[in-house]
């Protein structure tokens, strides 16, 4: 008995060793994150207090960049576009995803085929999606002129990306086309995990399709729904690629978002210090929005 006790490592030691092993597995990823996330983040905070072209020495200017940011109409206009974008993406693709997932959950044959078909645009590179829609919506050789040639001139000459009123919603439409299939797949997976017996019980209680959706489906997919809303908010505030590729924020700033404005400040105007302050400003506003959302969710 004594011999056996002597050979077995103490319980505390075993626990420490397990912790150490876990940490050792995490160290490589932690190092990468320090290198590519923490390091640049700290540097961004520092440079936001400087006047820096992006090359060479940076001159400390205190809060000047932040004061400029508060008075910068371009920044607030771009921020407003981000808010509009967020509202659009919190409604259209989520509604489409929910509806699509609900309809797909009702069928068995071809469910995988349709899921796959709707998901394809999400895995296609954004530059390819953009090039496709730039051609489809081109005022000279796109769908508008094709329809006009068969006697339906309703879209003839409409410059979706060149019109100041249409540019932002048109780019959002293209992004949505690629995005909603992903949302659909998330909702479909969540729907499949909702207990069928709950639907049966609701039917016995006389609930119709709409009541089943409100009282069984929605509560059943609540965690996924909240995840999708958070993901949408964060993605909408960080949006860059589709706007940059299609309109570069134009025409006349009509589709400018903070991401593209920040890029121009840093890499075209060579105001990397100011761009850093802009990035932190966006992070701050995003953080506040996400915190408000989490607070409201906790309050039910």
């Amino acid at each position, binding site marked *: 008995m004594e011999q056996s006790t002597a050979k077995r490592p103490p319980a505390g030691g075993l626990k420490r060793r397990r912790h150490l092993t876990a940490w050792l597995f995490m160290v490589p990823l932690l190092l990468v994150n320090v290198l590519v996330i923490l390091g640049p983040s700290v540097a961004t905070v520092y440079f936001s207090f400087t006047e820096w072209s992006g090359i060479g020495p940076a001159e400390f200017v205190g809060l000047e960049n932040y004061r400029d940011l508060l008075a910068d109409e371009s920044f607030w206009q771009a921020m407003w576009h981000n808010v509009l974008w967020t509202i659009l993406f919190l409604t259209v693709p989520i509604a489409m995803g929910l509806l699509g997932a609900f309809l797909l959950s009702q069928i068995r044959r071809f469910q995988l085929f349709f899921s796959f078909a709707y998901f394809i645009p999400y895995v296609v590179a954004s530059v390819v999606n953009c090039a496709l829609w730039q051609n489809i919506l081109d005022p000279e050789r796109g769908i508008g002129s094709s329809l006009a040639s068969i006697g339906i001139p309703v879209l003839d000459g409409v410059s979706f990306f060149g019109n*100041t009123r249409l540019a932002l919603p048109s780019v959002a439409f293209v992004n949505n086309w690629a995005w909603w299939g992903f949302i659909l797949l998330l909702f479909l997976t969540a729907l499949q995990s909702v207990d069928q017996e709950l639907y049966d019980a609701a039917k016995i209680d006389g609930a119709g399709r709409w009541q089943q959706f409100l009282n069984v489906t929605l509560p059943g997919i609540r965690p996924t729904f909240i995840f999708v809303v958070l993901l949408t908010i964060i993605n909408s505030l960080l949006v860059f690629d589709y706007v940059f590729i299609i309109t570069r924020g*134009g*025409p*006349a*700033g*009509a589709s400018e978002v903070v991401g593209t404005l920040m890029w*121009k400040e840093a890499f*075209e*105007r*060579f*105001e990397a210090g100011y761009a850093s302050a802009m990035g932190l400003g966006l992070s701050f506003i995003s953080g506040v929005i996400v915190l408000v959302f989490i607070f409201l969710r906790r309050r039910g």
Partner: protein
Amino acid sequence: MGLGAAATLEKRGAPVLYELGLGSTLSVNASAEDAEGAAAFIDYLVADKKLAAEWMAAVPSAFNAPLPFTESDFPASMDPRVARLLADLSEATGKGNFGYTAWTFWPSKSDVYIQEESQKVLTGDITAAEFCKGLDEQFTEERKEGAVPKIIKPGGA
């Protein structure tokens, strides 16, 4: 050293302003750590005219050595229309008749201002006079900062 289209503002009868602008300049930065090395590299790029012509044929429009070329200087593999264009361009720029591309001859913030704000003139958000006033302010600020690239004088100036 790419080429870009630029609008000509010349009146009839004035020297031809070539409707192409040189998209970059070959120069050595005043604060370069190895100015001699940079100068030697530029020499290497332009010293051998035959080699430069071959590069221009191999990478059309991307590399254009600022040398006095005639059509016969270019290899036979080059499209004769391109050869004629480059020879004409060489002759025009040799006389100082070239366009001042905004991305080469304007400082960076003024260049961005021209790109962004000219759209607002077209959409009617600002007037041409407001555009010019804003550009003047931006350019004056950058000139004070010493950010304006060296302007090459045009032909006859």
